[in-house]
């Protein structure tokens, strides 16, 4: 008898069960653990207090990102510059102490490989298909782009993984999100994921592990897939998987932490068995078609508040659900928007191109192609380009992208989370508006009173040069 067809998620799950309890809870082995400075100090403190060690330092990789200022980190003489914010400096110092004490691999603040955890993991080949990967950060879902079962955890769980290399979990339901067709001109991975969340809602994926399928996903580069999986959590799903394929393998081959030689061949053979079997059942299926996806952005304070750039600010009265009506009104008050305003008539003062959603080389190339030969508009007070890692930064510099940006009036920064969250000096001032390539448009996310519109890198670049939210297609190829 043929065995039951399985989904990618079910295969990864089955390969990681250490023990199954009577109530269905499983002790799941964790293959890869990423650590950053914000959610780890109390976990290490817990280990220290209990006299415990890190079980598998070799499966753990630490890198600071959230707090780190994105201004220069070393002076002209090569000395490390101090961090002005005392608490940020303390969190960084604590991480440095902890990795030294517990023997964990570490890319420090001035290492060329330093960057946002979710950019560094894939880039180093630390993230691999078929692995279980966790990090004390909700956007860990990003790593699902390479076919890893990856999800964010809390500080207690960070401690649990450090000490035991396992987690107690219950198996999730599965959801297929299928996007068929071919993306239109000027439509990017960010627009795809915004359209998905616009359709499923911010809580639509709650309780599910999502698998993205269909031609549109297949045709995306690994960078684009990372953008999609990254925002799974904004749709409520802790994980968002994409089956590994030739694109994935080509991306991983030769990366510093990826398997080499004979190990590579063995890994590849196993990875090829992972994609969902024909006939496997998902608990829920959502379908979209590429022809329904255009360059998109958010108008409100939830990532589900999505409209095409050609659209208008919606009227709260147009929502059938009374709770949504109230939420929309609150959003519009916070965002300082009036129903019926054309999205393209909204002026922005801040531009942020960065974050674990959109700070990889492809994102910077897309932005640069729009910026080239143009200049940041007068009304824009702050326009930041923050590469996701030191390697992205160097690559961009080798391609001359930094000059395109700086000549146009952008600031070219050091890698980190930056203006994605108001935890470091990069903030959007109260009441000001930002076209941002990050993933959360929550109230106060980019600073108290900040108004965020989530967009793709090309759309952020277009907004920068026109000073208002702009349909990037109007600027593409026409200069």
């Amino acid at each position: 008898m043929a065995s039951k067809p399985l989904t990618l998620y079910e295969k990864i799950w089955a390969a990681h069960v250490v023990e199954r309890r009577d109530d269905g809870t499983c002790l799941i082995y964790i293959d890869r653990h990423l650590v950053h400075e914000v959610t780890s100090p109390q976990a290490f403190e817990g280990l220290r207090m209990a006299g415990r060690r890190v079980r598998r330092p070799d499966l753990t990789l630490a890198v600071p990102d959230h707090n780190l200022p994105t201004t220069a980190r070393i002076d002209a003489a090569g000395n490390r510059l101090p961090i002005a914010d005392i608490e940020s400096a303390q969190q960084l110092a604590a991480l440095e102490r902890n990795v030294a004490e517990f023997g964990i691999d570490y890319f420090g603040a001035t290492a060329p490989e330093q960057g946002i955890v979710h950019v560094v993991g894939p880039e180093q080949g630390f993230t691999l298909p078929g692995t279980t990967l966790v990090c004390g950060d909700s956007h860990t879902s990003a790593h699902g782009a390479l076919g890893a079962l990856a999800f964010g955890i809390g500080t207690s769980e960070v401690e649990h993984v450090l000490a035991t290399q396992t987690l107690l979990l219950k198996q999730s339901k599965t959801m297929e999100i299928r996007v068929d067709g071919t993306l239109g001109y000027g439509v990017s991975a960010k627009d795809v994921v915004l359209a998905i969340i616009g359709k499923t809602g911010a809580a639509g994926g709650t309780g599910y592990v999502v698998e993205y399928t269909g031609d549109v996903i297949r045709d995306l580069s690994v960078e684009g897939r990372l953008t999609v999986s990254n925002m799974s959590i904004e749709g409520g799903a802790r994980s968002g998987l994409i089956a590994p394929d030739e694109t994935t393998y080509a991306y991983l081959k030769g990366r510093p932490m990826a398997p080499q030689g004979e190990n590579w061949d063995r890994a590849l053979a196993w990875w090829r068995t992972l994609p969902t079997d024909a006939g496997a059942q998902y608990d829920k299926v959502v379908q979209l078609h590429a022809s329904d996806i255009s360059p998109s952005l958010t108008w409100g304070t939830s990532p589900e508040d999505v409209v095409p750039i050609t659209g208008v600010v919606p009227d709260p009265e147009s929502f059938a659900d009374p709770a949504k009506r109230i939420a929309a009104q609150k959003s519009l008050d916070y965002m300082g928007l009036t129903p019926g305003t054309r999205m393209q008539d909204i002026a922005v003062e801040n531009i942020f191109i960065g974050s674990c959603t959109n700070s990889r080389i492809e994102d910077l190339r897309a932005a640069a192609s729009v910026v080239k030969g143009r200049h940041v508009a007068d009304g824009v007070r702050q326009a930041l380009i923050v590469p996701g890692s030191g390697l992205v930064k160097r690559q961009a510099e080798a391609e001359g992208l930094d000059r395109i940006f700086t000549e146009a009036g952008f600031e070219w920064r050091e890698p980190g989370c930056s203006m994605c969250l108001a935890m470091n000096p990069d903030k959007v001032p109260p009441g000001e508006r930002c076209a941002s390539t990050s993933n959360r448009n929550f109230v106060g996310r980019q600073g108290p009173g900040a108004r965020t519109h989530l967009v793709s890198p090309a759309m952020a670049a277009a907004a920068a040069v026109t000073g208002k939210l702009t349909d990037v297609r109007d600027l593409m190829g026409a200069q």
Partner: protein
Amino acid sequence: MEAVKKVEGKAYPWGAKNIDTDIIIPAHWLKTISREGLGRGAFESVRAQPGNIFDDPAYAGSPILIAGDNFGCGSSREHAAWALADMGIKAVIAPSYSDIFSGNAFKNGIVAVVLPQEAIDRLVEVAKTDAVTIDLETMTVTTPFQDRFAFEMDPFRRDCLMQGLDEVGLTLARDTAISKYESSAAESRPWLVRESSNAGVAVEAGGRT
């Protein structure tokens, strides 16, 4: 974790409903690196008001907090449990809790007792003058006035609290199973084992991003 069989003593007779984790510990305390010291930030906005119960010398250092419905709702920050523990609170009594908070309380050895609103009302009265006793052995809350309120608790959590077992300790007790899994995985998927100390070493595929 310390074993808790009984929590007895004074109690903050608060009874407030829908206390979210932002009230328990405001967001600007989240940049700490320790679980300790968060007690100073606990209930900061409440404490800003004159005559609040947390600064009333009559209740200073109480090991018990009596609260209303839906205690610990809002953000999932574990700092809320750490802040309570740091201010010396060993048990909370309320009609209900947010799931995440009760999980976090348990992980940090704080007993979260569920009692109906009538019991809460009565305990708030008693606590204004007298001590309250929570006994995990008998699963009761009692007062010097013959009040006796029985409560229920997940047997697993109760055991862990009474024996001072934390989740990490429990999993570590499964060490043999974990080691067995590790060796079989190392055989079937040898590429997962990493050579440590890659950090700082020149990157072979430098320039690839």
